[in-house]
């Protein structure tokens, strides 16, 4: 056979081997990469960082604890220990002998104990044998019985022996302890001294990176029992809607937000707030004894926090732990988690994936930076460079920082106020007041069944002139800088800087024509009654009346404010929301005439049966004076602004544009030819009102059945970002040339939309009628932010009924009442539910403030409240008051709704029968005496008076103004009076009623000023003499006098006894004075309005 030729290899082996070696090493490396990539997680970095912070904190505390004094004490103890050890060493032989003795005894005890236990076990087994033998009637049962008895005896003996041995052992132990106890005593003292330090050391061990930490958290080993782990809350009744199924939420936010439910990591501002809050409560002695110590410790801790560097997120404690997250709060973390309010991806443990949303472009840029692209870790704690990237697929990104409270609406949109101090309460009130819901349907309880926000225009011709109306519609903010009427015309997309000059001129012609036409339609459809009266008033007196009777609770009477020494045009936000409820009084004289004003202030319902303005019961003279004052409020220059005449071509063009929707162009032309300019204007006016939706806010004849024109906002917060058309807008340039970068998120879109509604038309070429038409409210950034919060809070996410707020019947009743309170602007004058009283800053003397209604339901009886609300003249509680409770002309239904609300809010029954209780004579007698001793009569009168017309007290003596107590029985609730006397300041902070029964700083209980030796004082001698017969002995008298509750009850009984029991009920609606002379509708005034040709144009409205 021929030997085979060597076959050559395709590739040299050495090269293949080299490649194999290299690639195998690379494979090993990338496999290591897998482990590394899996191991290195952002949340671990955050947990380590938090450990570092804790470690630093504990080490600092340790240094503080381990001061020189402690060290000296420890050294002394060590020395003593050494001395005692030396002593013992001297008697060493004794100790050794005792120890040996003890050892022996221990051994005996062990054996005896074992014998006893074994014998007992045998006995138990024997018992079973015996019982079963008895049941089976076995022949051996007698034998068994004998054995059992013997064994019992043995156990008894062994027990005795065990006790004996135990005593002997204890004696031996004591002999040893005599020696050892000397050392142990020192050791105990030492332990006591170092207890805190030891605790801190143990804590330090758990947060420091020691050997245990590295082993437990090592890669590949960390599945066993790692100390760094993902923390989560499983929420089985809060779901995420995944379209095909609902998935329980599993919130893992705590994995990085380590201290979220742990006090001690608050921001400095929050710490400051908490300190103030706690100090206030401490000063008022509102804590019981043990709670007090706790609170003091907390204050000290918070003060230490203030001295340390600021804690940043994610390591902060959640603010307001008593409301959120805290286990005692209404929203404990274990029940509510985080994402149900904040939104975001519940299960994500990585910064971007969790759905964090930047609040601004600046924040976005900072977040986007990263130091290591694969692993989004910040470089250090403060740089906040997270390698963030927007997650466009997350349907519920978190609310950005400035809109956190939007999340409240998901569960609280069936409440008027979540909490008076909350932002969201103000925000929803703002939406209600500005009337967003009028044009944009919002299908939830909070924004349904509200009245129209604008006045009726059915009688506009009675009130003002077309010339005024034109100028007003053209630019309402030029007339009143604080008006809620938005600017529809000459907006950014019509005459803004980006609009080409030619189109701009055309737009102005169209806009002029539309305003003319709207004015023409309104005036041709207006009723035209002639209002007379109001002459002969005095403006100075009028001004004084306006300031006195409470007009300014709802109205503002100035257009300039001075802030920080600078005077500028007023904004709505310069005044409380409640004071924007009515229009700004500035310019009233320019707008309307004396006759109308006179009749309006006399009774607004004459002009408009649905007017929100109440009746202040002004006399004819007062009304005339007010009229004179209001007429004197002129807006100089406004009526001299030129008005361009309507351009017939523009009117015709716009009208034709509408007509050809329903008919051919030729028919439209023919129809227009048959109309003169006025008729064309009226036609166009109707169409324009439809286009701009004026009827959404105002009652206008002919538009009764139309639906609101805006986009429905019911689930606006759930819409996907791609449904929001940013147009070509990336940067925002305001009219004042301020530049801003606009980030493309839903909150940002809405914020910019409400701030500058026409912005998304920038750079777009649209037909005139297709341009955006949402009007400009000239919102301040703050207003825009709040309104955005509400809009993005309206989502389709639903939570279980069990987690919704205000779901039971009583709470629904309250909320209906609260809505009416909000709709009637009661908070202009009153504090309701703890907030409100916008008028307060205008009234210097607290005696003249309208009452705080927070405890109203507990305070007053329902029948009285009903009659008083219907007709406030039935009783004058404080006759010296200047501000008048107006007559609102509530219907019975509305009145009942309010009464029910107050009763429910006060947790009181709707009705009580205590009015008919007659207190026992003894109680009255004691009460009268206490009344005298406490000198209540200094302020309060007890002489019965006519409730409707009580005598005027001496107003000059402001310290003595107080209600007449004889009115209490028909008005106040029986059980409330005593409670009020005890703690007036807690019910109504800042009340004039003095706190006679202060809480004890020790116990938090009420103390009596008459307790102890007070009764023995010379001043009370007569009283004591009178009181003694009423008690069995002096001791009982003393006891009663120091019992605050009993004293207040006696006082209450006394007040009850002197009360009148009858008062006038509300009169049926008094008919308004007949002054209305209905006349046939007036023909519209000739338009176009009078102006000079080529007059300078109405300049584009000046922006703020």
């Amino acid at each position: 056979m021929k030997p085979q030729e060597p076959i050559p290899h395709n590739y040299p082996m050495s090269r293949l081997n080299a490649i194999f070696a290299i690639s195998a090493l690379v494979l090993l490396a990338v496999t290591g990469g897998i482990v590394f990539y899996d191991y290195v997680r952002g949340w671990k970095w955050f947990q380590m960082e938090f450990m570092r912070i804790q470690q630093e904190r504990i080490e600092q505390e340790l240094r503080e604890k381990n001061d020189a004094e402690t060290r000296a004490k420890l050294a002394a103890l060590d020395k003593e220990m050494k001395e005692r050890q030396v002593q013992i060493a001297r008697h060493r032989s004794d100790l050794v002998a005792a120890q040996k003795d003890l050892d022996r005894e221990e051994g005996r005890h062990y054996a005896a104990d074992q014998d006893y236990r074994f014998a007992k076990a045998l006995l138990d087994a024997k018992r079973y044998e015996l019982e079963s033998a008895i049941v089976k009637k076995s022949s051996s049962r007698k034998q068994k019985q004998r054995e059992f008895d013997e064994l019992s005896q043995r156990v008894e003996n062994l027990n005795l022996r065990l006790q004996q041995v135990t005593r002997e052992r204890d004696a031996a132990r004591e002999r040893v302890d005599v020696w050892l106890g000397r050392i142990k005593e020192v050791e105990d003292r030492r332990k006591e001294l170092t207890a805190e330090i030891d605790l801190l050391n143990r804590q330090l061990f758990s947060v420091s990176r020691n050997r245990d930490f590295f082993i437990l958290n090592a890669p590949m080993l960390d599945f066993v029992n790692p100390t760094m782990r993902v923390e989560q809350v499983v929420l089985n009744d809060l779901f995420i809607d995944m379209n095909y199924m609902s998935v329980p939420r599993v919130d893992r936010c705590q994995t990085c937000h380590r201290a979220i439910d742990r006090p001690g990591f608050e921001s400095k501002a929050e710490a400051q707030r908490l300190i103030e809050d706690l100090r206030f409560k401490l000063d008022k002695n509102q804590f019981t004894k043990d709670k007090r110590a706790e609170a003091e410790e907390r204050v000290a801790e918070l003060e230490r926090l203030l001295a340390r560097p600021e804690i940043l997120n994610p390591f902060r404690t959640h603010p307001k732990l008593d409301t959120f997250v805290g286990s005692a709060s209404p929203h404990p973390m274990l029940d509510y988690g985080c994402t149900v309010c904040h939104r975001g991806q519940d299960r994500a443990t990585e910064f971007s994936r969790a759905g964090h949303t930047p609040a601004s472009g600046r924040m976005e840029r900072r977040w986007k930076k990263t130091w290591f692209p694969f692993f989004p870790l910040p470089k250090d704690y403060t740089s906040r460079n997270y390698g963030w990237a927007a997650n466009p697929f997350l349907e519920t990104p978190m609310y950005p920082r400035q809109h956190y409270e939007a999340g409240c609406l998901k569960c609280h949109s069936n409440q008027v106020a979540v909490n008076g101090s909350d932002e969201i309460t103000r925000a929803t009130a703002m939406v209600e007041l500005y009337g967003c819901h009028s044009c944009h349907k919002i299908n939830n309880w909070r924004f349904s069944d509200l009245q129209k926000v604008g006045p009726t225009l059915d009688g506009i011709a009675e009130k003002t002139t077309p010339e005024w109306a034109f100028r007003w519609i053209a630019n309402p903010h030029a007339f009143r800088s604080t008006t809620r009427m938005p600017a529809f015309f000459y907006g950014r997309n019509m005459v803004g800087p980006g609009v080409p000059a030619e189109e701009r001129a055309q737009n102005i012609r169209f806009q002029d024509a539309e305003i003319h036409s709207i004015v023409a339609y309104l005036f041709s459809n207006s009723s035209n009654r002639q209002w007379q009266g109001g002459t002969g008033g005095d403006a100075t007196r009028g001004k004084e009346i306006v300031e006195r009777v409470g007009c300014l609770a709802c109205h503002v009477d100035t257009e300039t404010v001075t802030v920080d020494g600078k005077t500028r045009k007023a904004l709505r936000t310069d005044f409380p929301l409640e004071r924007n409820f009515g229009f700004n009084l500035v310019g009233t004289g320019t707008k309307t005439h004396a006759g109308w004003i006179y009749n309006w202030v006399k009774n607004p319902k004459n002009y408009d049966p649905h007017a929100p303005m109440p009746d202040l019961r002004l006399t004819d003279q007062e009304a005339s004076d007010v009229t004179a004052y209001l007429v004197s409020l002129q807006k100089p220059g406004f009526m001299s602004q030129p008005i361009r005449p309507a351009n017939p071509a523009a009117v015709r063009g716009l009208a034709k544009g509408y007509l050809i929707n329903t008919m051919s162009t030729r028919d439209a032309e023919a129809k227009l030819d048959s109309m003169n300019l006025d008729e064309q204007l009226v036609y166009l006016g109707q169409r324009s009102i439809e286009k701009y939706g004026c009827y959404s806010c105002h009652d206008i004849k002919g538009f009764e059945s139309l639906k609101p024109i805006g986009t429905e906002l019911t689930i606006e917060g759930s819409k996907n970002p791609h449904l929001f058309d940013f147009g070509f807008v990336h940067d925002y340039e305001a009219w004042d040339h301020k530049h801003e970068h606009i980030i493309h998120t839903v909150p940002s879109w809405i914020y910019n939309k409400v701030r500058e509604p026409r912005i998304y038309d920038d750079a777009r070429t649209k037909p005139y009628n297709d341009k955006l038409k949402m009007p400009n409210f000239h919102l301040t950034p703050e207003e825009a932010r709040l309104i955005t919060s509400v809009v993005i809070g309206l989502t389709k996410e639903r939570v279980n009924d069990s987690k919704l707020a205000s779901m039971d019947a009583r709470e629904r009743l309250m909320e209906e009442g609260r809505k009416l309170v909000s709709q009637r602007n009661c908070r202009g004058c009153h504090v309701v539910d703890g907030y409100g009283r916008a008028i307060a800053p205008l009234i210097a003397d607290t005696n003249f403030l309208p009452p705080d209604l927070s405890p109203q339901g507990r305070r007053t009886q329902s029948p009285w409240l009903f009659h008083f609300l219907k007709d406030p003249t039935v009783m004058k509680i404080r006759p010296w008051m200047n501000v008048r409770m107006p007559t609102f002309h509530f219907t019975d239904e509305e009145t009942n709704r309010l009464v029910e609300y107050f009763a429910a809010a006060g947790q009181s029954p709707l009705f009580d029968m205590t009015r008919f209780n007659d207190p026992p004579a003894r109680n009255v007698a004691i009460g009268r005496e206490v009344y005298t001793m406490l000198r209540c009569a200094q302020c309060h009168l007890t002489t019965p008076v006519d409730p409707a017309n009580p005598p005027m007290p001496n107003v000059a003596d402001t310290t003595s103004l107080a209600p007449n107590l004889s009115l209490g029985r028909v008005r106040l609730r029986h059980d409330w009076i005593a409670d009020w006397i005890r703690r007036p300041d807690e019910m109504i902070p800042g009340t004039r009623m003095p706190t006679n029964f202060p809480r004890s700083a020790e116990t938090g209980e009420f103390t009596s000023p008459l307790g102890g030796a007070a009764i023995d004082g010379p001043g009370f001698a007569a009283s004591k003499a009178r009181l003694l017969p009423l008690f069995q002995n002096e001791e009982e008298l003393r006891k009663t006098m120091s019992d605050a509750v009993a004293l207040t009850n006696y006082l209450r009984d006394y007040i009850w006894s002197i009360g009148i029991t009858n008062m006038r009920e509300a009169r049926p609606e008094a008919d308004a004075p007949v002054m209305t002379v209905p006349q046939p509708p007036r023909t519209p005034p000739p338009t176009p309005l009078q102006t000079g040709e080529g007059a300078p144009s109405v300049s584009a409205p000046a922006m703020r």
Partner: protein
Amino acid sequence: MDFIKNFVNVLSVASISFVLLSAIFGFILYFNLFDGKLKSKSGYAFLGFGIVLILAGLFARPLLYLGIAYLLIMFVLANLGGRLWDKKVGLWLLIFGAAGFGLSMLDPNFNLIAAKPDNVPIAAMIFLLGFFTWLALRKAYLNDKQIEAGGIPWEKTESDEKLFTWPDLVYTELLCMILLTIVMIVWSIGLRAPLEEAANPTSSPNPAKAPWYFLGLQEMLVYFDPWLAGVVLPTLIIVGLMAIPYIDTNPRGNGYYSFRERKWEIGIFLYGFLVLWSFLIITGTFLRGPNWNFYGPYEYWDPNKLEPLVNINLSELVWVKLMAMPLPKLWFIREAPGLILVLLYVALPPLLAAGPFRRFYLKMGAPRYYVGAMLFLIMMSLPIKMVLRWLFNLKYIVNIQEIFFNI
């Protein structure tokens, strides 16, 4: 820079890029056939086409760009000739391509699309496809030259040799496995799984894209009725691919690369695979944005972009535009022009068999010829329909709504 970007944007519009690609494809195959030497007559034809494009470009900017690009590429290719298959030139082409791609990644809009984890494999596919096509054609070119010179194909000389299974086969396979595993691991760490939001029947993503391997089909939906593009054509593609071994019985080129011996087979297959199928996938991946509108590679995917919907049917074109009369009521009269065209198209194989394609008919035999020709016609209906759409905004050739039948 902006000019270049704009230039590329315009060129990548489907109609332009398709024409350019078809022309280059034809040109490359053409000179592969003739050893890179342009015969003067054909040379003038290619040049003439370019001049026509330039002239037409005076009226329409995109055509001017097309003409410029076309002439530039033709100039380069004609000068390269057979050197196109040199290793060095191949390397330079790769370098140019990679550099162009790398520079484009600096553009934010391009980067956004190309660096999307879903699209990375398709970007890689462009290069792989180009490389392997180049490699195959290079080997075919070299073999063809060798055969022309009276030699034997390179594979033939090689196949007589013997090699060990170990190490020459198994060792290299092992190395490939390791290297591929490394690539997969690095890829999966570097690019995240492209997960999107929870499925929601009420909200579809915009653009809603099929998986990449179906994007060719989705692109076909632009030009064809769904039942054709979605049912008939995919079925026929599979059937046609299965039928290839039975239709193509040409024994030459078996086991070795050769172009000249199989120019029709290779030409048709590569046209269908590269210019039609892969081109559609690439277009669908990179150039179709919101609302399935066309976006250049450097263009921002603006969801507001609108393209006019002005496509018309052949019946409207004939009756309304040409003959200025209303559409006939009866569908078979109304659609008569379209139906006649379709019938004519289907009648092409027998007609051609009698005429220019007699050679094929005789060589293949009737059954193979007719099946092959029908499959070819159906394949070619795609570019024809595309060109008709671009030229005449033609929507359907036959549009019988009465029985939901559209072609």
